[in-house]
């Protein structure tokens, strides 16, 4: 099998790897770049555990070939925090107990990030639709909804304050 050079922009870093041409973004991230925070539960596009953001949009890394997205900005769970500063989604997931086994969590948080960027104050129904491609077997989704709602209000404190005064 011939390896091909491939350059990706992951969490702001430019990374060049030599990889088998049939290897997916999931395999590149985990096996070539050591970004094992991106999980896999099926490698068939069924479970959503490998969700990453490509130019801000959730994509399944197990169904994506790196050649398709060479110029794109890729965000994985390792890129959610900025330095020591956690993303509010991470803080909210911790406080609401939204990560039990934690295996769906990276993909779930990235779907949540994409949602909150497009829709800063989603309804519970909108949240349910946004994460419907991310299977969670532990939580029954309740604490995940609560965490995403908490993150939404953390991200717009002024608005939340205004809302609570009404």
């Amino acid at each position, binding site marked *: 099998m011939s390896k091909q050079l491939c350059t990706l922009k992951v969490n702001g870093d430019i990374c060049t790897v030599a990889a088998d041409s049939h290897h997916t973004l999931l395999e590149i991230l985990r096996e070539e770049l050591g970004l094992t925070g991106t999980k896999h539960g099926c490698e068939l596009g069924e479970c959503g555990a490998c969700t990453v953001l490509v130019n801000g949009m959730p994509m399944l890394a197990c169904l994506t070939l790196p050649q398709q997205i060479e110029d794109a900005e890729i965000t994985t769970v390792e890129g959610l*925090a900025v330095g020591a500063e956690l993303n509010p989604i991470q803080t909210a997931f911790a*406080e609401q*107990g939204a990560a039990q086994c934690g295996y769906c969590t990276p993909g779930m948080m990235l779907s949540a990030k994409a949602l909150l960027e497009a829709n800063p104050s989603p309804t519970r129904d909108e949240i349910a639709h946004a994460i*419907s491609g991310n299977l969670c077997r532990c939580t029954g989704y309740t604490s*995940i909804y609560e965490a995403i709602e908490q993150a939404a209000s953390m991200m717009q404190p002024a608005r939340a304050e205004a809302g609570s005064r009404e």
Partner: protein
Amino acid sequence: MSDFSVIGHRLPKVNTWDHLTGRAKYADDIFLPRMLYGRLLRSPHAHARIVSIDASRALAHPGVIDIVLGPDMPELMGIMPSTQDETALAVDKVRYVGEPVAAVAAVDEDTAFDALSLIDVEYEVLAPILTIQDALREDLPKLHAHSKDANVFKDVHLEFGDMAAGFAAAAHVRDDWFFYDGNTHAPIETHASVASWDGDGKLTLWSATQVPHYLHRELEKVLGVPRSHIRVIATPNGGGFGGKSDPFGHEFAACLLSKRTRRPVKITLDREEVFYAHRGRHPVLMRMRTGVKTTGEITAVHAQTWLDGGAYASYGIATTYYTGALMTVTYQIPAYKFDGVRLYTNKPPCGPKRGHGTTQPRYAFEIQLDKIAADLGLDPLAYRQSILQPAGSRTVNGLRVTSMGLGQALDAAAASSSFGTKHGKLPRGRGVGIAGSAYMSGAGLPIYWNDLPHSGAHVKIDRGGGVTVSCGTAELGQGSDMVLAMVTAEALGVRPEDVHVVSGDTTLTPVDLGSYSSRVTFMAGNATKAAAFKLRALLEDVAAEKLGISADRLVFAHRRVYDREQPDHCMTFVEAAVAAEAKHGTLVSVGSYKPPADIRGKFKGAGVGPSPAYSYQACVAEVTVDLETGEVKIDKLTLAHDCGRALNPVSVEGQIEGGAYMGAGEALMEEQGFRAWMHKKPSLLDYKIPTSLDTPPIQAIVIETIDAEGPYGAKEAGEGPLNPVVPAIANAVYDAIGVRIDETPITPEKILRALGKLPGRPATNRIGPDGLETAQPDPKPFIRKLQATSAGAAGGDSD
């Protein structure tokens, strides 16, 4: 205001930050230098004799380093020592599609995968046994030569109290059949293991396992390597639910391949393989005969269960007993008879899934109670309240009930859901149902019967105030590491984040039997608390002296030791620790826990069912049935759970919500279907588990009964909450459309069939099994013993 500074507070789990930042190292996240990748070749046949295996073509394939076959590990293994019937890789026979027969190690996963097709296996195909009925026939082939009667794995028969008098005293007898279909755990993480045979001749295995201790034992047996030279590390499990509590072929194969190649070997199962590894919920056919007085008071219960066990034992002997044992701890049953039989079939082995063996009979019994209430014109809530097993009592089968919150749970769930104003009063197509249940806080007896502790912990305090707790528990996401941290922190007056938790490592941690049967909070919690209080006593000694007050005035909280009556009269935890170490020496202590001996009866089979404490649950389901499509939509699940005390309410609510979700999936969509002997849906696309859009709103209610023996009063929360959900939904469907669905799952097809909306099928008020066909000329005695008791013998009526 709580007297506790840690217990009962809503705190983030100490290990959650690694999960949230992508740092947590699950087994498949481990990459070691020179690591090889393994894959398993699996049987395409449900039942076949292996005539020959020739791996020479595969071994010649570039990049293939080694291949192991069944005869390389011929030792029988299995989780239960008395019923070991499995080998790591199939030796002479394969008994289900997907059974592993060979393992390849290669330089990368692609190469290992390619090599599988180069292994030549010649099979002599045998007729498969696929149903409970066929497994009871003497004239069909046996899966295992050791089965004495047909394909019976085990049959058990227990009787307590005066059954004849009980049924004679009954004014009304119900005789109902039920079928609970099999389903699977489907953790999002697939099983994975990394084995490394190191330079010193010792083996380390990192594995996604719930039971590092038992795996440790089996590795010794199968590999012939002393346990002193094996280290098993349970990596964080990406969900378990019982599915990772057996020793598995890939774990042994990775170890042997590493031993032979002297290189680390990783084997990660793919999703399809997880469906074959299975060990999921047993399909169970059930017959419940219950006698009641006109008031509904139960006079006798005869429960019969037939379990479709699949190809191997797994926990099957325990599962079989569990389909009978816990029936008695919820409602008063003065006379009780139980017959259970587990059968071998050529399907992936069934095992323990959340609620282990109790979920199926609970489904049957709570539906039957609903029927009894309807027959007698009783309110289903008030009826249940009138027959509760009291706290501080013994059941007819010798189980000791301590704290008992089923009554409060029923009331709370009913009140929060307005059950009373809705039941029987909603328009056609909408309904509410209620059900109660129980589960245990760990098994009273260990799998290996011995006098050793069920759980051990040690606690160490370092000179900077850091605390380390070590215990053999496996973290599955249920929050067991946080339980250890909170119990330790409360005892010593530090914060959970000051506690470093070492868990699930057979070299570093004292034995805990593992994360199964909801035993960790109760047993490891008690062991940890005992260890921590030994160190606390040393700190009390020096603090009392230093502060010049008696030890009983000392409070340990917020990293300080202070005078209860004058809180600013204090010393820091670090000062107390340093002073204690100066006076008493290095600060390390041990604690262990073993359940009391008097919690079980004295009869064969009394080992399954006893627990130091039972948790109790009640669920109200509200549903809307679409009369045109047959779809059941759950509008809301209200689930109250008596956990003794919620050590961390966030974790307890999470377990309640997760149980509600998983129960909803089992009730409406999950089934382990087969097309002849082929698994019909070995993928997450075909095997439906609820997505966020399928999951109803869930209200979790925590009931606290403060169990006298639980750590800070706590009992289990991990499994029980699933149990009442499934019958509550079935009872709600009855309330909505007047149809009893006496088998799971409650699919649109079954609803439409009941409503007479399928062509050529008349409407019916019940869907479910009618009996067990064991029509065999001159059945042998064992068949007669296992056959259904004739309904007439009870002299009661039935529908």
